[in-house]
């Protein structure tokens, strides 16, 4: 049987008793780092990191399973993730590698083997952001998706109480284009979809759907602003807006949108918007577009299955809010589609944005006092550093609270 390394997250009070626990439950002998080097573990050995409340155990899957069944002092057991991109960073940028190692130990994210791929159980995006291991589901958090609406008859959303409103004259909130259904699916699709792997980050969030885009997935300022106003009025902690329009290098942010975003933030609503898809990397990098380029809006870039910046993802070329805040999965993303298709796969910073919205809802559930700027700070502080430049990835890959 294959022997791998597992990260065992312990309750704070359980570290001192961990050697006994590991031995009794799984036959794993443990020691503290001064006695045993975690990088040179033999089978059936573990190294304890008391400051983090973590043990790194080298054992087979049966032993890991036995540990995970312990309950009580063992909060989580995860196969150690492998991060190929940072093997290179390890050689060229020790600072980034050290930051990643610290973050990896602290976040105890799922097993990673790059490139990430959709599985029978969950999409690659959910694996990348750590949603599967999170003990939060978005319960009690109001999350608004401003888009083309939603297919409310979709089996994955039917029966779910969804607040809805259309701000587009003459059109109902029912989605016929698929863009809104897709984004709502990524942000808060169900824990167990009808006939698909899990694709939603915050399945228990209270979903608010505002239609602000028409049948061509375009929308006017008046409708977008009305949608933001509606979401703020309903005290939505998170507002996901997967749209924008291009700006030029040197353009400043729009003062009106910044005033609106700052007021939403002060009222406890965090606006999240895509960086845009105009880049053709590596030769051409386009600036973060409007309205994401406002300082008070969280700007989302896209990464691929190898956690490298997606070729289309815009970069932080302009000052004063024109930077990328963080990145999320945005290439080959699987999510819901209006009937009869039910599911679809798409790429874009549109697809990355609701990942961040969903993770923000998890953070909002984890700390009911974290709203507005405090919620934004939580999101950014938890990001996983990646090797690409901050111009393209900001604080790094968004990570769910565990």
């Amino acid at each position, binding site marked *: 049987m294959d022997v791998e390394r597992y990260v065992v997250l312990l309750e704070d009070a359980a570290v001192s008793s961990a050697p006994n626990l590991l031995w009794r439950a799984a036959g794993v002998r443990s020691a503290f780092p001064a006695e045993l080097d975690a990088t040179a573990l033999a089978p059936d050995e573990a190294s304890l990191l008391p400051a983090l409340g973590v043990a790194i155990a080298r054992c087979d899957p049966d032993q890991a399973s036995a540990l995970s069944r312990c309950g009580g002092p063992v909060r989580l057991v995860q196969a150690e993730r492998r991060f190929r991109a940072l093997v290179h960073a390890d050689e060229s940028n020790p600072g980034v590698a050290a930051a990643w190692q610290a973050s990896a130990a602290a976040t105890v994210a799922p097993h990673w083997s790059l490139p990430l791929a959709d599985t029978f159980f969950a999409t690659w995006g959910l694996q990348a952001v750590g949603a599967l291991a999170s003990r939060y589901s978005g319960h009690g958090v109001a999350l608004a998706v401003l888009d083309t609406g939603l297919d409310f008859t979709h089996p994955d959303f039917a029966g779910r109480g969804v607040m809805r409103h259309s701000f587009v004259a003459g059109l109902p909130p029912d989605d016929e284009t698929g863009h809104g259904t897709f984004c709502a699916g990524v942000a808060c699709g169900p824990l167990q979809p009808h006939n698909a792997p899990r694709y939603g980050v915050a399945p228990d969030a209270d979903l608010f759907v505002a239609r602000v885009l028409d049948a061509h997935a375009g929308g006017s*300022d*008046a409708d*977008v602003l009305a949608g933001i106003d509606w979401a*703020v009025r309903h005290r939505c902690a998170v507002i996901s807006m997967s749209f*924008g329009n291009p700006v030029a290098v040197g353009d400043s942010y729009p003062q009106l949108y910044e005033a609106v975003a700052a007021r939403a933030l002060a009222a406890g609503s965090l606006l999240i918007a895509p960086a*845009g898809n105009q880049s053709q990397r590596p030769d051409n990098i386009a600036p973060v577009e409007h309205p994401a380029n406002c300082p008070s809006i969280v700007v989302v870039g896209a990464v691929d299955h190898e956690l490298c910046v997606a070729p289309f993802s815009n970069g932080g070329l302009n000052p004063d809010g024109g930077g990328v805040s963080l990145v999320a999965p945005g290439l080959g993303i699987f999510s819901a589609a209006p009937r009869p298709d039910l599911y679809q796969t798409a790429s874009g910073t549109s697809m990355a944005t609701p990942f961040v919205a969903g993770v923000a809802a998890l953070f909002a559930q984890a700390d009911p006092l974290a709203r507005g700027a405090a919620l934004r700070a939580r999101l950014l502080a938890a990001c996983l550093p990646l090797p690409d430049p901050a111009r393209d990835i900001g604080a790094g890959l968004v990570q769910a609270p565990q």
Partner: protein
Amino acid sequence: MQARTAISRLNVAVAVTDEARARIREVAAACRARGFEHTSTLLEVGVLIGSVGWSDLRKLRTVAGVAAVEVERRSLSNVYR
């Protein structure tokens, strides 16, 4: 001249200043007096929606309590095609 006529009226959004948010209706009235056709008020974010004649756009920006005026633009979804 024909092009000017075609865009003689512009859809705009008007943000009021933080100080003027409590009296947004007064600001709206002052805007209307300068040619602003007011269609809706977004109280939560302190914005007036409406339209204005091309020639009145500059005047609207000088109304006391107005922080910013944006001429409407369209946003598009960010699917990569």
